[in-house]
């Protein structure tokens, strides 16, 4: 499905990463695997450092921390926020919405909209699209898009398929109207028939958590996982990304009348280095224009990885300059999304540590 937005822009980005850093070299001893094979994997996939929350830390804690830093620095005023969108797959509770909890803890005004959006790695683009749609309303002048996940709390430490790559974090993106006559193109696709490729089987109402769902099972390849843990069919997800994402981006650029060479940066979701290199090769994009280093420094934090690419790789430049960028997210749902926009001249573009 295609979308076009006019006169909208991102005006600031703040990424919150937990101070707690884990190292793959230390963690690989937890897996029932020879160290030599794990080291080869580290080299190819880019696993190294990752940031994860301490026990008990929730999505709302990261979001409140980040927004308070913006209030303190006078980069954002409480009363300016007309809508708070939270994209997460690891909400604090079934109910109420975590965005309402954030509003309450921060003492934001009542005359606003709070909305949780359950999306995974495609969720940054999907959240931006929702923000742009809200800005069509006269009463909405500033939208705060929060992307946040603490998926490490749902990953089995004995599952080499997913544990070494998971990172936690939050991002706060300020979205406003643009005085320039800017045009933003976006595309999104969904395929719920493949939803089981990335899922947490137990813990909802379909299969409530119980001692049985908490029991670690041998799931093959020397991995142990419970039904309460996140499951990822790595091969299925890899093939999904390689098959679906290049045509999505190609069609988006064709619709916008923009050639691949005219895009300054392809800022993609960051599952691992190998997957992104293969994606870049397929689209004949030089690696320098498609950064792939987030997973090695922070881990894969779902929909937070695209703003992390912005803040980590283009921190100063996005304050001074403007670039034509193509964003692309892909993952659970399954869902895949892409957006072409002009990004830059940001009021802020920061990374803060949550302690």
């Amino acid at each position, binding site marked *: 499905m295609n979308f076009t937005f006019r006169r909208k822009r991102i005006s600031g980005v703040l990424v919150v990463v937990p101070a707690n850093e884990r190292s793959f070299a230390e963690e690989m001893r937890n897996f029932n695997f020879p160290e030599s*094979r794990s080291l*080869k*994997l580290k*080299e*190819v*996939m880019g696993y190294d450092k990752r940031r994860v929350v301490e026990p008990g830390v929730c999505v709302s804690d990261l979001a409140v921390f980040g927004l308070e830093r913006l209030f303190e620095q006078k980069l954002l005023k409480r009363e300016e926020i007309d809508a708070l969108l939270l994209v997460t797959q690891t909400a604090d509770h079934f109910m109420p919405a975590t965005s309402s909890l954030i509003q309450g803890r921060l003492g934001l005004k009542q005359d606003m909209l709070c909305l949780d959006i359950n999306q995974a790695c495609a969720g940054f683009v999907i959240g931006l699209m929702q923000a742009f749609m809200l800005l069509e309303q006269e009463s909405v002048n500033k939208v705060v898009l929060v992307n946040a996940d603490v998926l490490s709390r749902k990953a089995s430490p004995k599952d*080499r398929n997913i544990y070494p790559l998971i990172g936690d974090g939050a991002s706060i993106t300020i979205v406003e109207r643009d005085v320039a006559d800017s045009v933003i193109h976006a595309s999104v696709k969904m395929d719920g028939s493949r939803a089981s490729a990335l899922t947490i089987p137990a813990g909802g109402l379909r299969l409530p958590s119980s001692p049985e769902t908490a029991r670690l099972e041998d799931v093959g*390849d020397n991995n142990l996982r419970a039904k309460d843990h996140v499951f990822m069919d*790595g*091969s299925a997800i*890899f*093939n999904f*990304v*390689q*098959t679906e994402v290049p045509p999505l981006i190609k069609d988006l650029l064709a619709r916008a009348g923009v050639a691949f060479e005219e895009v300054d940066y392809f800022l993609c979701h960051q599952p691992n280095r*190998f*997957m992104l*290199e*293969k*994606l870049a*090769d*397929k689209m004949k994009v030089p690696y320098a224009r498609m950064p792939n280093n987030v997973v090695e420094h922070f881990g894969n934090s779902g929909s937070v990885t695209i703003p992390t690419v912005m803040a980590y790789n283009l921190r100063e430049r996005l304050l001074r300059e403007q670039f034509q960028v193509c964003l692309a997210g892909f993952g659970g749902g399954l869902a895949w999304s892409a957006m072409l926009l002009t990004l830059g001249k940001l009021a802020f573009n920061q990374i803060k540590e949550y302690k």
Partner: protein
Amino acid sequence: MKSVIEILKEIRPEFDFAASSDFIADGMLDSFDMVTLVSALDKNWGISIQGTDIVPENFQNLQTIEALLRKNGARL
């Protein structure tokens, strides 16, 4: 330049790949081994095997791996 079998032995030295006709069914390569193998094959032949080709059936035995390499531009 290394041979395919030499590269396989570097990844899983405990197995005799010459004696198997189905590395996947015999449990000699898992999905992470395939990723490691593709990375090594790419470097050895100076190619980039397409992501959509990284499926188990292309890694069943030496013949399928060599066919995969040829398809992706390697000169064997």
